[in-house]
């Protein structure tokens, strides 16, 4: 039997196994190699909710999905073509994500009686046999046995040998997709620099996996995926949380300001604290506060002192910050609030994704309390939008909420590295009169520039000594004022200052399709990839649908109303029970339909596509 070589445009592979099986590492190696091969790609790790569930149990299963192709890729894929399962629990947890007729690569040593029992399969059942009967292609490999065989001369213990199982499988999959082994060999060599025997073993296991695939002809087909038409440049893979960290470091550099992060750990935002805590030499101070309130108020204190105050959290933590966000709004100090949303309400499903904190971001404070709200659309976009959040916060002296979510925070995609010299400048409205200058004009902390922005005068200058606080302040002087007209005026000023940001942000553009027509899909946040894919598929099938995606939620782009008015119907897909839809209805009094999924998961491309097509019937 000879192997048929095929070309494919898009492929989705899902690795799965026990938390201890090294699935995440396998996945990220496969991603790197794929990226180096010139494919576009998107990945998503799927960790178990428990820290470390009992080995072999269904809730202890860890998975990593990668979608890659010779065309632009926008999501990690609704379902996969190939499912790697290291044990029975992995099969049980992931079988529903395999496409009909898809390939299962099963480690047969993970399907013993004990494994079936741990996975809570019936004693007498044969899940792999059943899968085959359902039309899946089954590739059985005794991975454990073969890995031990491969490494028997290394002198490693069985336990140590078993740690290379994942590399054996990776070798098999590399063969299947015609991938080079070198990148992973390099990686292993450098990772285990101090333990060369471990590096050797892993490399050998991988090579033997590759050879095994050649020799045994377990596969009847083999696939080649051509390079994708990607903009030239240097790329790296990046997760949303890492992108936030890099953006903040970048803003520190371009603004020439210190950064102070006050944060309290919370899933799925903690990596931002972890990442920034390694960057002290960038002028970044991180403070693990006793709670979210101390986190944000310490950031406010630092802002008063001349730092970019930043705080990072997730929905329930941001809820606790509401009162302090209002303080920062009154103080008119720069403050960046990163909200990595998770499924709620309350503790909800902390490890699952959702975009249901839009209401809270826009409205979740006492009083008339306008802040700016931005949202990132993908892992890499977290860089752009966090940088933008820092810029707006600093230049407009206002709290900015940047919305990310669990999906893009942990998911990764290739990111074209920006040229550092091309990063646009951040210009703080610092006011520093020469202390020995003859300028006798008094300082007015609540005077405003043409964008309604007040000067930022930081302690240390004799000429700008002033006090600020949460009580209503007199225009110009900033002294306490109970004057009714002044309160009306200041309320307006705070709103106009927020609204004036609209002049600085890009006008809304159409992402796909013509700029008028029967149907416009409006997205925001992490649904970008799913919507984009669904739109492209629908358009390929001839449906005249257009797509626009919001990254600025408050203020909204100036031309959005005009843009919306040019379509007959508007559809708003969201991973929540309907939030942006209310904002659009309110702001533009347009008829809008929602496509709402609250399943703790990214939108499924095929479901959304079906909903789009439905609009045409």
């Amino acid at each position: 039997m000879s192997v048929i070589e095929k070309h494919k445009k898009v492929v989705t592979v899902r690795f799965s196994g026990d938390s201890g099986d090294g699935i995440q590492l396998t996945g990220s190696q496969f991603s790197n190699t794929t990226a180096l091969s010139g494919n576009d790609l998107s990945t998503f790790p799927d960790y178990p909710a428990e820290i470390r569930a009992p080995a072999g149990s269904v809730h202890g299963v860890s998975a990593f999905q990668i979608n890659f192709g010779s065309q632009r890729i926008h999501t990690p894929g609704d379902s996969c073509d190939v499912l790697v399962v290291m044990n029975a629990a992995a099969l049980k947890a992931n079988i529903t994500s395999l496409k009909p007729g898809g390939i299962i690569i099963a480690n047969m040593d993970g399907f013993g009686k004990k494994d079936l029992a741990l996975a809570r399969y019936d004693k007498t059942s044969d899940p792999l046999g059943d899968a085959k009967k359902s039309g899946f292609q089954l590739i059985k490999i005794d991975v454990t046995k073969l890995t031990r065989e491969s490494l028997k001369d290394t002198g490693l213990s069985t336990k140590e040998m078993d740690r290379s199982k994942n590399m054996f499988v990776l070798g098999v999959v590399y063969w299947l997709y015609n991938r080079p082994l070198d990148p992973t060999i390099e990686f292993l060599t450098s990772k285990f620099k101090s333990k060369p025997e471990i590096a050797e073993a892993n490399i050998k296991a991988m090579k033997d996996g590759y050879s095994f695939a050649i020799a045994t002809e377990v596969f009847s087909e083999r696939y080649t995926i051509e390079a994708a038409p990607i903009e030239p440049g240097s790329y790296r893979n990046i997760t949303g949380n890492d992108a936030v960290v890099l953006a903040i470091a970048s803003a520190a550099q371009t603004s020439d300001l210190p950064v102070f992060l006050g944060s309290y750990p919370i899933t799925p935002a903690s990596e931002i604290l972890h990442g920034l805590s390694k960057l002290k030499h960038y002028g970044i101070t991180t403070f693990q506060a006793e709670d979210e309130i101390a986190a944000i108020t310490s950031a406010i204190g630092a802002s008063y002192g001349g730092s970019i105050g930043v705080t990072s959290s997730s929905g329930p933590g941001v809820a606790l910050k509401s009162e302090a966000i209002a303080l920062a709004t009154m103080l008119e100090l720069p403050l960046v609030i990163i909200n990595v949303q998770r499924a709620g309400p309350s503790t909800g499903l902390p490890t699952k994704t959702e975009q249901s904190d839009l209401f809270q971001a826009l409205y979740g404070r006492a009083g008339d309390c306008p802040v700016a709200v931005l949202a990132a659309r993908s892992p890499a976009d977290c860089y752009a939008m966090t940088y933008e959040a820092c810029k707006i916060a600093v230049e407009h002296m206002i709290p900015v909420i940047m919305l990310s979510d669990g999906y893009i925070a942990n998911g990764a995609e290739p990111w074209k590295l920006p040229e550092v010299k091309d990063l646009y400048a951040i210009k703080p409205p610092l006011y520093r009169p020469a202390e020995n200058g003859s300028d006798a004009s008094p300082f007015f902390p609540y005077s405003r520039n043409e964008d309604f922005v007040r000067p930022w005068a930081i302690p240390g200058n004799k000429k700008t000594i002033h006090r600020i606080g949460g009580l209503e302040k007199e225009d110009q002087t900033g002294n306490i004022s109970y004057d009714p007209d002044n309160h009306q005026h200041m309320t307006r000023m705070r709103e106009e200052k927020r609204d004036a940001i609209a002049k600085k942000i890009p006008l809304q553009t159409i992402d796909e399709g013509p700029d008028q027509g029967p149907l416009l899909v409006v997205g925001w946040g992490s649904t970008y990839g799913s919507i984009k894919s669904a739109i492209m598929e629908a358009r390929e099938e001839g449906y005249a649908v257009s797509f626009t995606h919001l990254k600025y939620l408050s203020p909204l782009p100036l031309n959005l109303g005009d843009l919306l008015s040019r379509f007959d119907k508007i559809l708003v897909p969201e991973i929540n029970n309907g939030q942006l839809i209310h904002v659009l209805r309110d702001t533009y009094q347009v008829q809008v339909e929602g496509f709402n999924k609250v399943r703790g998961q990214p939108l499924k491309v095929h479901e959304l596509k079906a909903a789009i097509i439905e609009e045409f019937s």
Partner: protein
Amino acid sequence: MSTLTTPSKEKKRKSYASNQEVRWCPGCGDYTILKQVQTLLPTLGVEPENIAFVAGIGCSSRFPYYMDTYGIHGIHGRAPAIATGLKTSRPDLSVWVITGDGDGLSIGGNHLIHSLRRNIDLNILLFNNEIYGLTKGQYSPTSQKGHISKSSPQGSLDNPFNPLSLALGSRGTFLARTMDRDPKHLQKMLERSYQHKGTSLLEIYQNCIVFNDGAFEPYTNKATRNKTSLYLQQDQPLLFGENNRYGVRLDGLKPVVVDLQEEEVSADELWIHDESDKTKAWLLTTFFENNFKDNLLPRPFGVLYSEQIPTYEEQLQIQIEQAKERHGKPDLEKLLKGNDTWVVR
């Protein structure tokens, strides 16, 4: 240094006073405290532009508005946290926290104990009037048990905090007590708080003339204060009463009042105050609970405890230097690249 206000001092003091009208009730203890702070600051050699007062919410927390220094009137209970961000990012500033018994011990209790353990160099002035002043008279976490107030018509049920015991239990490194009615001592204590590197907690008994008048009467009233107040002096025996008639002696672990006129006790049998002794400090804070009992222990004023250990921000600076040494000048390009990049042509 004389701590009394002389005319030239008065001028200096005014230079630290803002142009805002002071709006406490006439006769409120807050006035004296403000005055003493304004009197002390010019003597410290710190310029007003390098000083920041951070407060929460409460009558006392209006304080920053009245100082011609930098300042933040924050939100209720959060002053220590705001100040932590400010001081950590601006270790060059002298940062003072103004808080009340409600602000600092009720809603803000957590921030207070955490800043104490972190030992950030803040000077925390706790205006303790045993009442919520600004909200017009509910009992506070320091109100005496059984205190009848608007929210406790049958008397409060809570055992009050003993603020300095709490602070010691929180690993506070500088704990002192003073009162509004003794400006000289108050100023001395303010100065000591300032001098301490690390979080200093100065509890100030402050009379709220409107909602809790006379709460500290026993310690301020001329007729009684001699018997009820003990002024601590480093290396000196614990003496109090008219003509230092009484002393305190340790009977094992138990502090006992001795009448030096009646008993034959030599000075070196008495308890010698040692600010660096944490166990003694604990005992001193617990005089609180023994008050009004058989063995009438006086209320100690002065520095109960003082310990010099590295501050949070000092250590942070060291880590920053270490990071700089290890990683060299920040190279943003390199940082953005990370470990694995590829080039698309």
